[in-house]
């Protein structure tokens, strides 16, 4: 019985990986050569954009919305950990999970964070106004994934249930906004590279000035 769910999970992760790779290649489209003479280091720009630029001290959206920012980070850390566990289980079906209360709690807290963001989207008129069905479906799938990861970790549900839930998420992942899982990195890399090329990043003043 588990073999079918294992195949399903493997197929979904493979589908997501291939589809995202395809989308990335199409988006790159051969790239765009920058003909301007550079004034800074694109590499340093990328490094800055993936490190200091993401700290609340440097990023106003994080600084002004520290709770939401922290909730978002917690949810994503939980997702990444759950994905790592899923991949471990796919690679080695005989792998026995740790049945760790700590890991189960991490997934559970991440699921609660996802629920908070879902409810916030429902309650905020501004967010409702810019949201499509995809925005709700995506976060619900993520919450489901985290809940099943937590329950599987705690031994409450069978691994097959976790595989099925994961498959639903991964088959949907490249289709909606969840593809930001890849495009987050691509966008941030591109932006950092461009601002590094122009000498904007890293900032020359050494520290980012405080917010008004």
């Amino acid at each position: 019985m588990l073999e079918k769910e294992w195949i399903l999970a493997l197929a979904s992760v493979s589908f997501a990986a291939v589809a995202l790779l395809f989308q990335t290649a199409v988006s790159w489209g051969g790239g765009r050569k920058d003909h301007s003479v550079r004034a800074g280091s694109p590499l340093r720009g990328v490094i800055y954009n993936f490190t200091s630029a993401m700290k609340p001290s440097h990023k106003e959206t994080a600084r002004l919305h520290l709770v939401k920012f922290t909730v978002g980070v917690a949810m994503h850390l939980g997702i990444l950990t759950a994905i790592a566990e899923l991949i471990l289980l796919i690679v080695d079906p005989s792998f026995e999970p740790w049945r760790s209360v700590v890991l189960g709690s991490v997934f559970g807290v991440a699921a609660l964070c996802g629920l908070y963001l879902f409810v916030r989207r429902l309650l905020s008129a501004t967010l409702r106004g810019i949201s499509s069905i995809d925005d709700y479906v995506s976060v619900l799938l993520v919450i489901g994934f985290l809940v099943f990861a937590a329950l599987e970790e705690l031994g409450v549900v069978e691994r097959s249930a976790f595989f099925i839930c994961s498959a639903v998420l991964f088959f949907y992942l490249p289709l909606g906004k969840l593809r930001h899982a890849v495009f987050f990195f691509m966008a941030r890399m591109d932006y950092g590279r461009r601002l590094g090329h122009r000498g904007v990043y890293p900032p020359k003043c050494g520290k980012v000035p405080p917010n008004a």
Partner: protein
Amino acid sequence: MSDDAVSRAARDALRRAARGLGAYHLNACVKCGLCGETCHIYRAEPVPENLPGAKASEVISFFRRYHTLLGRLAPFLVGARSMTAENLDDLVETVYGRCTACGRCGVNCSVGIDVGTVIRVGRNILAAAGKVPANLQAVVDNQLKTGNQMSIEPAELKETAAWISEDLRLEMGNDEVTIPVDEPGRRVFYLVNPREVKFFPLSLSAAAGVFHAAKESWTISSRFYDVTNYGLFSGDDNAAAEITRQAIDEATRLGCQEIVLSECGHGFRSFRWEGPNWLGKPYEIPVRSILEVMLEYVRSGRIKLDPKKNKDRVTLHDPCNLVRWGGVSEPQRELLRLAVADFQEMTPNREQNFCCGGGGGMLSMSEYGDRRIGSGKTKADQIRATEAKIVATPCHNCADQLLELNKHHKLGVEIQAVVELVYNALL
């Protein structure tokens, strides 16, 4: 154009704009809604339509419709919209009237999306569809037809240069000071904002004074001297390329070795960074801002400054296109520290500065005038907090907006170009 033709042209423009790295940004928005306070327009008018994420989403909705699977099969699921004439009309106010493409939301975006570039994709689409606001398009047309945005004839330019030179000779007590026009073989080809020629000659005069003091070999052209490029704002890359080409060809024709740009935020970004890409090849001639050149004069001892000659407190407004998009943030600061006695930074500044509200071509679109002035409140508050008497800004567009903010918010300040303060401080 028929509705079909409009839709086709817009889709082609989207395809061109999305090809390459632009598509990364169009695929990455999660609509987290945290970006509101980063936008000067949203801060002044906090309605959902002004949320940067909402503005970007409008452009992205078209991308999803034609470039994603779910957008093609079930557009309602992902909020994808077709490029009908009506939907494109809706986009006009969003990308031209609710956004100056200043990029502040981008550098603060929780994901890292270059929202300014996404907005410009929207402008690319509308330019192809012939839906650029009429007043903005008129500026682009002027530049293409006459070589400058204010349609100033070469004879008028020469006449203006002559009387500014005359005044400067009297002021400096030196008969050799002049504004050279169409002089071949000079080292520097200087591009100015037509606003300097038409309404505010002090900055051109000051630049001439600084060039003279530094013993620079320079000239302007009577035909192509405009540093501005409203193709950047309209989203018409072909027009922007042509405007760039005119100036580059003129510098080459005159045999100059370097192009120096007057204080103009979007002019710097256009010529320094976007121009080579619009033309599809690198320039054969280097381009610098006059700020960088003046700092070089100071460092090499070609000019000397006395800060006591500018006694009043001076603050600095960072033009978005020069600083956040252009990377020139320090030369103006170094110059001001050397040229004025009391320099006070605004907060925040540099790549975190707030747009004055006049960027993105907003000054040319009178239909959005009230929003433009209203959105400048954040900048007015920043200026007031410094208690400065003079606001220096290396951008003529910003200067125009700051002049209006000064009146509207009763700030009681003077607006000056950096070169004016440097000229005042010359020893």
